[in-house]
């Protein structure tokens, strides 16, 4: 293997180093002057004034969400892979077996924002790309109980199963709507690890932004 020796710029005798240094300083000054003279290069956002026009990067992970299609259906098969991969048990997948089909399907998908570390593992392992990380970052609430909730809008089979049925009325019979705090959430009276059972008087189901 040939080794390519690249001479470091600015080495050599004192005079050439002197002028190289001077030139590099001028290059730096030209760059910073470009930033000064072009206010469009400013990256600062005036939050919360620009709340409506806030630009966030795609990589921001602030909330776990379900991918819901136009019909309002998801692709979750309740396979539990995300639950197994979750490093601190922030996900609880509750499945049900309807007597009609006998096949397991998703009932509720409980996600605990309060313990989630936003490591993105659940999103990466999901075989059907059901989960996504969302940039909705204003998640603070006054009661921890509000931070364990259900992501799935309904209990029932995946969109693939549902869309095989032509009649929308028949589809509706196969699914049952599920609220945000449905299933084994703290607000529904379930004991969850790390959440105090004490009920604050001001806490209501409507509390919080979610």
């Amino acid at each position, binding site marked *: 293997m040939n080794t390519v020796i690249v001479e470091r710029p600015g080495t050599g005798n004192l005079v050439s180093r*002197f002028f190289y240094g001077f030139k590099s*300083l001028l290059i*730096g*000054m030209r*760059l*910073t*002057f470009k*930033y*000064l003279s072009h*206010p469009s*290069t*400013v*990256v*600062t956002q*005036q939050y919360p004034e620009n709340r409506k026009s806030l630009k966030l990067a795609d990589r921001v992970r602030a909330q776990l969400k379900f991918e819901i299609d136009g019909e309002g259906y998801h692709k979750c098969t309740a396979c539990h892979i995300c639950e197994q991969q979750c490093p601190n048990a922030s996900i609880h997948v509750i499945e049900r077996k309807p007597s009609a089909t006998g096949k397991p399907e998703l009932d509720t998908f409980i996600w605990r924002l309060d313990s989630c570390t936003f490591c993105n593992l659940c999103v990466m392992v999901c075989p059907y790309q059901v989960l996504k990380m969302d940039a909705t970052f204003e998640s603070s609430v006054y009661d921890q109980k509000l931070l364990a909730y259900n992501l799935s809008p309904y209990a029932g089979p995946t969109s693939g199963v549902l869309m095989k049925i032509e009649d929308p009325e028949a589809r509706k019979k196969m699914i049952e709507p599920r609220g945000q705090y449905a299933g084994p959430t703290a607000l529904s009276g379930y004991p969850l690890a790390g959440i105090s059972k004490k009920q604050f008087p001001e806490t209501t189901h409507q509390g919080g932004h979610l």
Partner: protein
Amino acid sequence: MSVSSFSRNIVSHLDSSPGTSAALFVSGLVGTLAFMSLMALILIYVERKVAAHFQCRLGPMRVGWHGILQSVADALKLILKEDIVPFSADKLMHATAPVFAVVAMLLTLIAIPLSSSLTLADSNIGVLYISAVSGLGVLGILLGGWSSNNKWSLIGAMRAGAQIISYELSATLSVLVIIMLSGSLKLSTIIQSQANGWWIWRAPGVGLIAFITFIISSTAEINRTPFDLAEGESELTAGFHTEYSGMRFAFFFLAEYLNLFVVSALGATLFLGGWMPLHIGDQQGLFSGFNQVMDLIPEFVWFMLKTASLIFLSMWFRWTFPRLRVDQLMKLEWKILMPIGFLNLVLAALMTFFGFFFFATGRGF
């Protein structure tokens, strides 16, 4: 030389009757203090805004329109803040240090001619006086670092001391070039000598080299980046003023920013003609029409524009260049700047002797 005796000297130059002298003294003092406070507030705001935009940020935006009242709010905060003195500090020295810093700055400020009529003290040894009293500032820094009884403060103060004393040489060497060319130590005479053109270009090459040397060494003297080793945040938290808070910290801060003004004003006075408008040749020469147009702009505006552009240059340096290491700092001064300064001085001497510069009238100035 104390402030009062010096001020009495100034006033005795202006008028001999005691009533008028007292009135002049008081108005001069009040005027200087008002100018000083206003200038510091403006400079700090401008620095923060300019710095922000150099770094793709917005800077202060909340207090007033585009944060214009930010430095007023900061000043109020500093005034109302608790003045914390370390338990094992030398209390007296700790209290005196900021005063030294501010007084040294103030003493240099009064010698700067703002326009042909607006000069507080036009001493016949103006340049010598400025380089002498500006050296007092280092005493404030050393005292502050020593009395804080904190190793970081002490290291910062020692670095500042070494740095200021070293770079004083180069600064003085570059100033000497101008003294030689203009043949005077009096600042007003130096400005008058630039009526046909500024020294930066009238003395070909020599003036420019002296100017660059002056800019570098004066940046080092006022401890600004890239020479801010004395208060390098990443190494020494805040250097000599780590243990200062409230008003005493504000004093150091004030001195720092007004030193920037004083140094830029001195640079403008020596190399860019001070309040003298941009002239090319004398009034009978080829460019007399141009000179007359330039005369339409008031002297004070000329002075302020020149000073502001030098201040901007210093800010530009600060937010572009990385900080030097201690050994690099010393190497730059003793191995590069000082030899260049001496060489330049010899060239300037020859140039002055043979009258080899633009618009030379006979020998010397």
